[in-house]
């Protein structure tokens, strides 16, 4: 009954036009996640970074983070190093800009110098850890192209599983697979694939807590390097939101008085 088949096909055509492609669905989810987290204004937190090598030996760093939301652009953030003692007082200021290179300044306390640095390459390690600069930077929607893969259970939640491909130059990754929970878009897991498209690292975030009855932040982020056996754990404490930070606290000049 070819006529009936044709009719069925015709009837279905508008539907297939309306249905989203996996790419559109992925982008929609990424946009929704971004929108969910918008409006936090600013936050401060303390971070303890523990580096573990293959032999199980550990080394720790203590860093204070201050972040200011910039509507319509990437965030401004400041990292102040308290430990190890030889880098105490060193601070880094970053203005993120989506696909454009970030503006970045480094303060060297020993000679009291503020140095503007090139931020073009983000694939290098942060403080000798398994986190690259691009892993800890501000995550704007336009930094990746997306593809929805599936929804599946992830621990106590349901997750969207997305594949995202870095859209910026000089990324160390061909792609990442991201698990976001369907309720509040908490990022629970990320797999990072290197330039040869082999699994390089796995990030797992846990201990999520809600702040201001809305914003979720993890207590622990664990990054395991599957190629070299090293690991880095970030433990986050003392999250505070809407602390009254302003643009002037993120001026390169203010690096000289950060303690």
């Amino acid at each position: 009954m070819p006529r009936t088949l044709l009719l069925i096909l015709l009837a279905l055509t508008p539907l297939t036009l309306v249905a989203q492609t996996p790419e559109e669905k992925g982008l929609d989810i990424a946009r929704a996640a971004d929108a969910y987290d918008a409006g936090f204004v600013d936050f401060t937190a303390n971070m303890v970074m523990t580096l573990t090598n293959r032999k199980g030996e550990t080394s720790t760093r203590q860093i204070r983070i201050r972040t200011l939301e910039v509507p319509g652009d990437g965030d401004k953030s400041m990292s102040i190093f308290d430990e190890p003692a030889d880098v105490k007082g060193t601070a880094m200021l970053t203005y993120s800009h989506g696909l454009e290179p970030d503006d970045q300044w480094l303060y060297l306390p020993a000679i009291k110098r503020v140095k503007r640095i090139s931020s073009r390459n983000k694939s290098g390690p942060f403080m000798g850890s398994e986190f690259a600069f691009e892993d800890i930077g501000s995550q704007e929607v336009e930094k990746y192209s997306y593809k929805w893969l599936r929804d599946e259970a992830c621990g106590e939640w349901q997750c969207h599983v997305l594949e995202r491909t870095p859209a910026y130059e000089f990324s160390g990754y061909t792609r990442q697979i991201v698990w976001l929970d369907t309720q509040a878009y908490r990022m629970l897991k990320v797999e990072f694939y290197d330039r040869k498209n082999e699994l390089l690292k796995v990030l797992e975030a846990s201990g999520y807590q809600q702040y201001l009855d809305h914003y979720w932040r993890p207590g622990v982020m664990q990054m395991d390097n599957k190629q070299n056996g090293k690991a880095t754990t970030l433990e986050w404490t003392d999250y505070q939101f809407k602390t009254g930070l302003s643009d002037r606290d993120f001026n390169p000049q203010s690096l000289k008085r950060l303690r």
Partner: protein
Amino acid sequence: MMKKAYLLLSLGLLATPPLAALDFSGNVAAEAQWFPRTAQFAGQFDDNLTLAFQPKLRQHWNERRDEITLELFLRADHRDDQRQHADIRELKWLHVSGDNEWRVGIDSVFWGVTESQHLVDVINQTDRLEGFDGEDKLGQPMLHFTTIQDWGVFHVFVMPGFREAEFRSPDARLRLPLPVDTSLTRYESSDGDEHIDVALRYTHFIGDLELGLSLFDGTNREPLLTPGLNGQGQPVLIPLYEQMTQFGLDMQVIVENWLWKLEFIHRDVNSEAFNALTAGFEYTFYGIFDTAVDLGTLVEYSHDDRKLNPGVFDNDVFAGMRFAFNDVQSSELLAGIIVDTDKQSQTVRVEASRRLGDSWKLTGEIQAFSNVDVADPLFAFSRDDFLLLELAYYF
């Protein structure tokens, strides 16, 4: 009105105490130095072992809008009694109010962008008894006002009191051809070392461009050293500090992996007016040979048209490589050479450092001079190649 004032006052009083915990940090460092070549001057030592202590105290209150800092530097040196010295690097009160910052007391500041020398950086006297790179400075008494605005950052410095340069003793290596007799120091200004110096500085950044303009009017930190006789009729160098007006410009532009840098000064002192510049680039190769190592390559050219009192960087090229290993121990290696394009003198410097455990840091330095011309100001150091090892404990 009164009620409001009273409320504000009591709030102010409440806000002051309780004080946050006093922050104490710093380092202790043992330094060993060897000079493999025989000395140029009789009586100069061939090795030395010294100890340095640099404690730092901080106390902030009023939600970090007020802060007092104290930073001391002490060195014990049993061979060179001139280098056995102590300095207050910092003893200042910082007050932040809105877009303005006030700093009162002894402080150090850094101006500029280049690596091989720091032309525009003239607020502090260089600590010539410490590092050979001119980055150690003596604390300078000052009143320093800063305002941070959309159009840039503007600084005003008023500096009562001058810090005289200190020199190594005659039996030390890396000393000048004649002993410097600081008891004979002369000043152009009748106020001597109490002349009140002033400086203005403006900095701003527009996209990838960083810009700094500065103006300094006061006692030149760099003494004019003239040969003379001391009270015993022995030949010595006598420092003369002239009054100077200096205009400075420093710029840096980022173009992809390139950092282009420029420092220019026009200095007007009684003996002569001159221009000097340092210009060059830093290009970084990220993650070389598929490792985490970054390699920065640096080239800087310096020119100085002084005739009377030529500096070391009169017509010199600096080329260097900086390896940042990006490892757990923050290992770094910097190797550089400075070549005088007129006199062909060469200075080679290699510096490496690595953290040991969480609190220790080991630094090694090699400095070598070759082909140094008799007319070069470096000639007095030409047999003072050295190897230095420093082990520091940070707390």
